[in-house]
């Protein structure tokens, strides 16, 4: 099975202290450390496990600049067969639809049976997967938490609000957005990364993809961020000042009142 996984490089929320920049329209990006968007990492792991079961290839792709090669290398070290960087000045400032357009044109240049994305990016809006599927006219399933390969189709499990699960049959080719927890992504150590340090990563620009210039980039973006802020702390917290037993009883009461106990 030929599998494409779309990944993204994001500031790692567990290793950064996110602060607003002086202009108040973005976060302070000096001194940030980045990593692979967590759900994307689960998507890559799932692709690798499917490949190891049924054979085929795993390609990872990202849209970005030179710096974004770092996450592609990490996924290569995990075991992806190849990685491609979609990069061109004309892509800068694309909104979700622009990114989906770029990926669509990339998909059309190859033959992929299955396309995976993470359920959403840490700093994203969970929109690219769905749009990409629509543009390709492929079926789409979101929040996928299990995949079984069958002949020409997949059985995918999905999480339903409230902890329930459903299983759907979906025809190939299709696009799936992968939920964290679907597997346990393998560890990528220093050694793995070093071993793929010299693997060439092809870069596709606007001409290579044959993208319509008017469909991507800042000019084409129809969704624009107009504000970015850290919400003020609200006063919803209640401090409990009783003994341990009293506090425990009170917590139980509060949880029950909110419907947390059945």
């Amino acid at each position, binding site marked *: 099975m030929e599998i494409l996984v779309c990944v993204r490089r994001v500031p790692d929320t567990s*290793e950064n202290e996110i602060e607003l920049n002086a202009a108040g329209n973005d976060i302070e990006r000096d*001194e940030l450390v980045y990593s692979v968007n967590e759900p994307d990492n689960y998507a890559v792991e799932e692709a690798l496990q499917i490949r190891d079961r049924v054979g085929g290839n795993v390609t990872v792709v990202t849209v970005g600049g030179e710096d974004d090669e770092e996450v592609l290398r990490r996924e290569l070290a995990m075991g992806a067969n190849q990685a491609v960087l979609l990069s061109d000045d004309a892509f800068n400032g694309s909104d979700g639809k622009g990114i989906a357009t770029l990926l669509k044109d990339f998909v059309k240049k190859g033959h992929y049976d299955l396309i995976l994305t993470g359920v959403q990016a840490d700093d994203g809006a969970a929109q690219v997967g769905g749009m990409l599927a629509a543009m390709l006219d492929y079926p789409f399933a979101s929040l996928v938490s299990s995949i079984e390969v069958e002949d020409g189709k997949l059985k995918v499990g999905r999480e339903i609000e409230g902890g329930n699960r459903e299983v759907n049959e979906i025809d190939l080719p299709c696009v799936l957005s992968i939920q964290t927890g679907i597997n346990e992504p*393998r560890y990528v150590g*220093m050694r793995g990364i070093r071993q793929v340090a010299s693997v060439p990563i092809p870069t596709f620009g606007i001409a290579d993809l044959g993208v319509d210039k008017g469909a991507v980039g800042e000019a084409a973006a129809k969704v624009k961020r107009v504000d970015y802020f850290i919400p003020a702390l609200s006063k919803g917290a209640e401090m409990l000042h009783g003994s341990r037993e009293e506090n425990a009883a009170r917590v139980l009461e509060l949880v029950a009142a909110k419907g947390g106990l059945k």
Partner: protein
Amino acid sequence: MVGILPAQITDWLIPSRNLFLTIHVLGVACFLYIVAKRLMPLFRAERDFRFDRPLTRLGRVLQYWLGQWRHPRYKFAGILHILIFAGFILLAARAFTTLIVGVSENFVMPGLSGRTGHIYDILTDYAATVVFLCMVVAVIRRLVFKPARYAVPAQYGKAHTADAVFLLALIATLMVADSLFAASKPAGHALQSQPAEALAFLSLPWMLQIVVGSASLTTLWVVNVSAYLVHEVTFYFLLCYRPFGIQFHVETSLFSIYFAKLDRGTLKPVRWDVPEEHLDQVKSFGVKKFEDFTWKHMLDFYSCADCGRCADNCPANAAGRPLAPRFLTIKARDYAFQHYPVFGKANNSEPLIGNIYSEDEIWSCTTCGACEEECPLLVEYIDKIVDLRRGMIDDGNVPQSLQKPLKALESRGNPYGKMEKKKADWTKVPEFQQTCSIKILDRDHRADTLYFVDSITSYDDRMQSIGRATSRILADIGENFGILGAAEKDSGHEVRRFGEELLFIALRDHNTDAIKASGVQRIVTADPHAYNALKHDYTDVPPVEHISQVIAREVKAGNIQFHRVEDENKRYAYHDPCYLGRHNQVYDDPRSVLDAIPGLKRVEMKRSRDRSFCCGGGGLMLFYEPKEEQRMGVLRVRMAADAGANVIVTACPFCMVNIEDAIKVAGLEGKMSAIDLTELVDQNIVRASHREECETATVGG
């Protein structure tokens, strides 16, 4: 078999000489064949450099092998073993003589003729008796008293009792046969009123002589030849059977101890034959299949005597984690026996993890070293665990709980993912800054001494207090010191022990460069893990001391004086951190500091010093989510309570995390508290006289 009674008692064995010779040849051939088969995996194993320092190694053979140094740590079993061992050593020449006598009846071991020989005979009569009695006692212990440490939990297979008793019985048989052989001839001489060699009074041969004394000469002859045959057959059966089980240590222990690891606190390199700069070319890291172990580690598997002392002292085992060092070895040995059979071809190797070991088993170890400290045969565990972890890391087989901190160590240089620029924030507490401001070393700010703070003390709110206490003490004794601040990354001590060697090398190289650039003459740290890393894992840095050593020295020199302890009713118990105590032998310095505080009453926990009980492990172990019945820390805190203590003094920030948590979990809040040695010293130190020096030492921070 026997035929006509020979004319001379001295010629009793001659008619059966060919039979005896055949058994000799067969026995020796069998033994050599089996040993050759057993050695086969060792030749397919990884290399291991154990050929240096022969005198030190011989010294250890004298101490641990001949001297049985560690055996009395378990009194009863230890003394029993020493008696058996001494008996065997004494009986070696006698056994050899007996074997030759079957072929050449009048053989006498050179040097053991005449009077010396007579004394030797008397001694060995007693030796055989003592060994026989020890066997009886050992069998009774195994069958009646059943010491808990011999039990085999269900997940590790069936009990080893039958095998143990069988082996003990064989040795007992050997002793009886030997004694009967020795007794029958003097009985024959006595019967013929010839001068008979005297047997040792009340020894086993002496008693057997009385038993057989009334028999006819022919019967005695038959007894003599039969005893010889039983002795010979048992001897060779034992010799050939030992390589199939725990008694192989009789042959291998000498080599295991000679080649044992000499340096505490160190780790083996990834590959002994690959220099660090060529590690990139190594195809596979660590131990994944059996042949990835080194030959010495395989020898360890053969040498283990299944005494259970390692598991008995293992805190992971005590807490119900799926790890017992004993079975790490036993399982590997069973694997070796199965895959390198005595008859038939060696089988293909399969991965160890998932077959004989589980992932949790290998991650459960805190590398505290209690097992290695206890093992009478110096079997190594930490290097094997780390090698197995290197293999898992290489395969990407790492629990999610550990992946985050490892990634953070890679990108931020600390497991918490905190910003580098906040590394020195612990110094910026106003009331601390007023008394003691700290230099951050760079080109313009120089000092003699570096205080290496390490991650937890820098970033953890609670542990920052240890950093401030350490700094105030250093300032008080007039030390010209500073810290590296943002330039300091995690020491990498646990990174290395969790098997991520290349990440460790990156951290070490970064820190080494930063330390060298700072131009300091020496390093002080309050974190035993950093101390061990800087001392043993780093090669190119100035000498390092733990703060307890510095304080102890200054107390001794009279440069530190203490106020009376505030509450004289409290009882203090010092908890030895593994990487200060066992791995670096610093036991007395922290205790001497406590004893120098007037009015402080100190008690010792039952398990202290080299038998200290790990509180749960440090570094990355704090992130790992073990499968366990209870926390090690809770067990430790209860031990302190049992010792009558209500304050636990530690000298390690990780111990503080574990013990303070454990006090809460054990429900001992209010009854028990924990304090770091530096905090206690900081509270009680007499300050005024040194105030000026503190200020001069810290100008310019």
